[in-house]
């Protein structure tokens, strides 16, 4: 559905059911250079299991207008504006990579608006190699190759996708190639500049699930666990053989984890 957030048109996929603000809501937040389609399975599942779903395209991404926001803190405030626009008082937040930092920061800054968290492929900081930052800033195709190549675990590169006939690596590459020029560079810059992860984690007061890839080379599981240790009462699930692209490399495990915590029927 289309919403207006801070005066700009925003798209959020609702998982195949009309958005109902009376139901408990969940916001799914994609990573750098991506869009709502990374959550296609989880969106549909949650929407048909009692949740109102907003699988959002962040500003400048996918079908949403405007320029990408350049800091995790600004994106966190934007998530609250999104909730306001949708008429949602409190929502669960699930985020991947950059989206996980956004969810974490939102829970720290606006704890009264966040019911619970699910953070996928996350670490306290996400320093980005200067070569990758430079390539992304120049819209050099090598930036996408680096993200896709390092982002998938060895099994992801071989394949054996749960969804019949789909090929993960080319699929991820095509998705990122759809991003508007400059978007990936801004996103990676926001990840690189974010230093409040530990502080934000300590401020989280809601239940938090960390869903980590066992062979994640971008945000190694040990870094995710270290961050989880700073969130009181957090829960960690480490997925063996899975890389950074947790929800596409392990869609059923992701849905199972979401189902246990977010299903509302």
């Amino acid at each position: 559905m289309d919403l207006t957030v801070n005066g700009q048109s925003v798209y959020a996929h609702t998982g195949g059911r009309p958005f109902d603000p009376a139901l408990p809501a969940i916001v799914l937040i994609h990573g750098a250079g991506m869009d709502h389609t990374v959550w296609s399975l989880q969106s549909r599942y949650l929407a048909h299991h009692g949740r109102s779903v907003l699988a959002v395209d962040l500003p400048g991404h996918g079908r949403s207008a405007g320029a990408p926001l350049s800091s995790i803190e600004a994106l966190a405030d934007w998530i609250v504006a999104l909730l306001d626009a949708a008429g949602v008082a409190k929502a669960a937040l699930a985020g991947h990579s950059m989206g996980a930092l956004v969810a974490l920061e939102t829970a720290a800054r606006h704890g009264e608006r966040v019911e619970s968290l699910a953070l996928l492929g996350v670490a306290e900081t996400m320093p980005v190699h200067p070569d990758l930052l430079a390539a992304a800033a120049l819209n050099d195709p090598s930036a996408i190759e680096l993200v896709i190549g390092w982002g998938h675990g060895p099994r992801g590169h071989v394949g054996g996708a749960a969804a019949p006939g789909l090929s993960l690596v080319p699929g991820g590459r095509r998705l990122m190639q759809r991003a508007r020029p400059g978007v990936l560079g801004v996103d990676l810059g926001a990840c690189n500049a974010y230093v409040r992860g530990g502080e934000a984690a300590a401020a989280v007061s809601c239940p938090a699930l960390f869903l980590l890839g066992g062979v994640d080379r971008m945000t190694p599981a040990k870094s995710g666990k270290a961050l989880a240790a700073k969130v009181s009462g957090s829960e960690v699930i480490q997925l063996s053989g899975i890389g950074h692209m947790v929800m596409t490399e392990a869609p059923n495990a992701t849905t199972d984890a979401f189902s246990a915590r977010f299903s509302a029927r």
Partner: protein
Amino acid sequence: MADAKFLKFDTLSLHAGQRPDPATGARAVPIYQSTSYVFDDTDHAASLFNLERPGHIYSRISNPTVAVLEERLAALDGGVGAVCTASGQAALTLAIMTLMDAGGHIVASSSIYGGSRNLLTYTLPRFGITTTFVNPRDLDGFRAAIRPETRLLFGEVLGNPGLEVLDIPGLSTIAHDAGLPLMVDATFVTPYLCKPLSFGADLVMHSCTKWLAGHGVAIGGVVIDGGAFDWETSGKFPTLTEPYAGYHGIDFAEEYGPAAFVMRARAEGLRDFGACMSPMNAFQILQGVETLPLRMKGHIHNTRKVLGFLESEAYAENGSVAWVTHPELPDHPDHRLRAQLLPHGAGSIVSFGIKGGREAGRRFIEKLALFSHLANVGDAKSLVIHPASTTHAQLDAEALAAAGVGEDMIRLSIGLEDCDDLIDDLRQALRAATKA
């Protein structure tokens, strides 16, 4: 920063799409000869039907063995996904039915497989879909033939049987300028020799029956989605960009982004038209794909040797060959384009004209001992056919001429036998045919 590493072609040919079977540890791809799959519970069943969870329901729509082949072929061609079908013809039909309704129009190369030409010329018009054929070298002709109702441009990497090289970059520009996708049949080259998606094509199809399998024991086809075409910006493809009442109101572009086409092709096309590939055929084709790089090297090696022999016959004062055509020959009109699109070889189909015309051609084919006379190409065994009387027999004289099929034309599919034996067989049959 270290470069990202991706698995190379030979590795993908052996591994893509498969993890050792979790139930048994089987290293080979198991043949899941099962029509259907037990649900964990009623909620799991509902989730599968509603596309909330990935998995298999019924083997007409997807099957674990077929899925390995689909993912492997998508990986080799660089596509976001693939749907395997009962035959190459079924793949072409599935792609067209996914893209357009009655009233749709296609602009196609005139130099394509006779079966495809029959489908486009005679059968699809019964369902309201028409085609304009254009010489594959006439890019302006393609542009001029596009109408408001056109929904697809289509051609073969190597024309059949004329072996014209399709200008994929040029055609894709024409297609995209008109908001249309380009689909390319790459059967004759396989992804080992050419990846059309990397040159701007949007969809690729193969008859898996040919070089991909190589053994001549299984019929099958595949259509591969490149995932780069923007269906929404085009605005001409409501099957992909508007809610589909036949599947919970899904808008495939909204839901799946780059994978919109391949998801609709499976969810509707296989479900309703039903031209699925059997798991046994998928297994057999997978055995071929595992050795695709090795076999294609052998095909190219032998083809170059045979070309040398036929050229020597064509140049000899009393030679039995009137002409030889193959894109690797310097006098081929598309030689330069071939160097760009097919740097590792231009396939193993060779066309030549035998002196003495139709009757000499008939005698030649009957005298061959190693080459098998049959209606197929791309087998590990060498094959021969006379197109005017077989694959293109439905075409009238005008259409034959437009397709570049002369009555003296012989088409060889060069296999993997010792090339000296192949040349000996050709030499004796040519002598016998000419002498008579």
